[in-house]
């Protein structure tokens, strides 16, 4: 009797462990595709894809479904993604930039060659050229599909500018002079989201882009240039100079706070892309705010119509499950995405007429016009070039550099050393 009772106890207590090791596949034959996404939940991309997936699911008679798991916060997303992949659990669809980590996945044969796929299916020319080129690696290969298309600009408060007799700058020197005037008059010139790091990194990239396109950052990554080179020092000086005009405590200021500071008139300027055109719309229409594009420098190799344009984080596909589960959906997605996405007042990476049944705002048309006039070079974020370790070091210490808590020499040494060690 004792043995029976003990055996029963062992069995019941062990049940959860035995069950945990079992299969999680459901009994029915519904094909489930998982998309591990880093898009704002309920945002335009998220809703557009869910709508299209729902339609596709119905066309497939309910035998196919898309399961979306979202982590909008990018650093957390990347950390979870890396953990999933390191653990051998790569989802069917992921979001990823064409960065060195993505290259590692490509080298390991884990991602679908999207450029090849688009060309094979005759879909390559359906996209804006810059939107696709942004997704390319330096060697011209492409493993991520763009879902958005953006330009970035510097928004400014017209009321404050008029009050101090200022006009939108055309050169970097004019821009710094405006900052100086505002600062002297007790106005916070620029509000910056330092918590997310990337907005500060954009300032670092501005001067090198004007003088060399993306060549400097490519050379820096490849060890052919030093952060202490002339161009690197110019970039550092610019960050140091403009950093003193950032809002107090910008290192601890988050995205929403930086933006609300600008919209509440507590700062005069704010750097962000057109994806934030909706919050800007009301004040833009009221004539209270406007934007200017990246100012120029003497001797620039990039034009005034060339600045930071991007097609955002791309969508990549697990090579192991693509043909079997994902390919049909992606074909369907590409067919419908342009219309669905543009009808949400968003800039689509795909060419084509705007939907006739949607009334687009004057701001949308203006941004679309700027996009239409775009040149060919585009400022690509530095974090998509550098290795993960150098990115961490660069972004951590850039905040100190901009706040004046680190000198240029220390910064140069840290970045150069990291690149030497990690490339």
């Amino acid at each position: 009797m004792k043995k029976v009772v003990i055996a029963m106890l062992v069995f019941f207590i062990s049940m959860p462990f035995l069950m945990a090791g079992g299969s999680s596949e459901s009994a029915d034959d519904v094909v489930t595709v998982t998309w591990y996404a880093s898009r704002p939940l309920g945002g335009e991309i998220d809703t557009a894809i869910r709508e299209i997936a729902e339609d596709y699911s119905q066309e497939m008679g309910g035998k196919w479904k898309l399961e979306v798991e979202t982590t909008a916060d990018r650093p957390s997303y990347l950390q979870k993604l890396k953990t999933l992949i390191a653990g051998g659990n790569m989802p069917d669809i992921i979001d990823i930039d064409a960065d060195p980590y993505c290259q590692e996945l490509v080298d390991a044969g884990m991602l679908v060659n999207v450029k090849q796929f688009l060309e094979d299916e005759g879909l390559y020319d359906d996209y804006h050229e810059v939107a696709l080129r942004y997704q390319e690696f330096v060697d011209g290969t492409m493993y991520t599909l763009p879902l958005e298309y953006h330009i970035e600009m510097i928004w400014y408060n017209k009321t404050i500018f008029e009050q101090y007799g200022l006009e939108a700058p055309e050169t970097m020197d004019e821009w710094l002079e405006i900052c100086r005037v505002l600062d002297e008059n007790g106005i916070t010139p620029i509000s910056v989201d330092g918590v997310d790091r990337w907005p500060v990194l954009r300032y670092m990239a501005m001067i090198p882009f004007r003088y060399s396109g993306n060549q400097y950052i490519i050379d820096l990554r490849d060890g052919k240039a030093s952060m202490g080179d002339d161009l690197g020092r110019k970039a550092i000086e610019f960050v140091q100079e403009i950093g003193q005009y950032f809002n107090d405590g910008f290192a601890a200021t988050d995205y929403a706070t930086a933006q609300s500071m600008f919209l509440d008139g507590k700062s005069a300027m704010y750097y962000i892309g057109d994806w934030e055109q909706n919050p800007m719309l009301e004040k833009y229409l009221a004539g209270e705010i406007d934007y200017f594009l990246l100012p120029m420098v003497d001797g620039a190799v990039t034009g005034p119509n060339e600045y930071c344009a991007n097609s955002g984080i791309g969508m990549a596909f697990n090579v192991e499950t693509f043909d079997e589960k994902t390919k049909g959906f992606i074909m369907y997605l590409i067919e419908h995405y342009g219309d669905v996405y543009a009808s949400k007042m968003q800039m689509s990476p795909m060419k084509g007429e705007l939907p006739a049944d949607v009334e687009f705002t004057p701001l949308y048309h203006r941004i679309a016009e700027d996009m239409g006039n775009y040149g060919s070079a585009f400022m690509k974020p530095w974090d998509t070039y550098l290795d993960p370790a150098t990115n961490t070091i660069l972004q951590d210490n850039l905040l100190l550099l901009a706040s004046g808590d680190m000198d240029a020499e220390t910064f140069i040494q840290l970045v150069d050393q990291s690149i030497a060690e990690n490339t």
Partner: protein
Amino acid sequence: MSGVIRNRKAYLVFLLPGLLFYLFAVFYPIIDSVRISFMKWGGIGPMKFIGLANYTKLFTDHVFYKSFFNNLVYLVIVVGMQLLIGLLFAVLLTYMKKHVSLVKTLYYVPCIITTVAVGQMFRSMYATEPMGLFNIILDSVGLESLARSWLADINTVLAAVSIPEGWRFTGMYMVIYYAALISLDPQVSEAAEIDGANAWQTLWKIKLPMIRPVIILSLTMCITGALRGFDVPFLLTNGGPGNESELLSTYMYKQAFSSNQFGYGSAIAVFIIVESILAVFILRMITRNREAI
């Protein structure tokens, strides 16, 4: 049935789930961390054995040293707040006659607030835009010159990320000490009072020595907790600006999951484990020596 309970094998059966859970959730990850710490691995593809290279790198890495010393400051602040303030509140609570449960509950509330909420709350309180609670208080008492963004200032950020963790668990240690203090035999204190001891002497010479095992236990929990401190500092500053509020655990996490250096991250993890074991060992040595005296 009572026979089954007396059976020694039955004890093993009851221990089995906990033991299995411990082996899988604690022991296996530790052993695997030790293994990976000898490897060079970016999270994809095969690992490469590199011997002690990750450990030698530890001792030439200035950020590692900075994180280590930051961790010591963090430990002092957190342990100081949790133990001293917890003990102070517990002692004060023993003198309260009414609403003891209410006060205990109120002080315990921070322990059950989710970490993200604690982080967000302190982020708001430290901010200058909009003006946070700390700066409003300074402003209202005429110390507006001290107002600053506490998380962005390199001179204050380390203390600023330590305080929320200390604040959060002060109530928990207060409850532990309070339970220990009220469980003491009142006759001992009464005898001391009859012998002429004042309240301070009774507390210092009688009550605290009697709850010494509880103090040592909570000190152990508190120190090992602070050595592993991660969530609030990571949420508030991600170790920044620069590495000014970097702790060993945040540095370990960033090395593994931001820089993709899983081998080096594991070496830091192993260091944290060894450091925690060493801290407990030293604490036990000290307390044993005192007992011997």
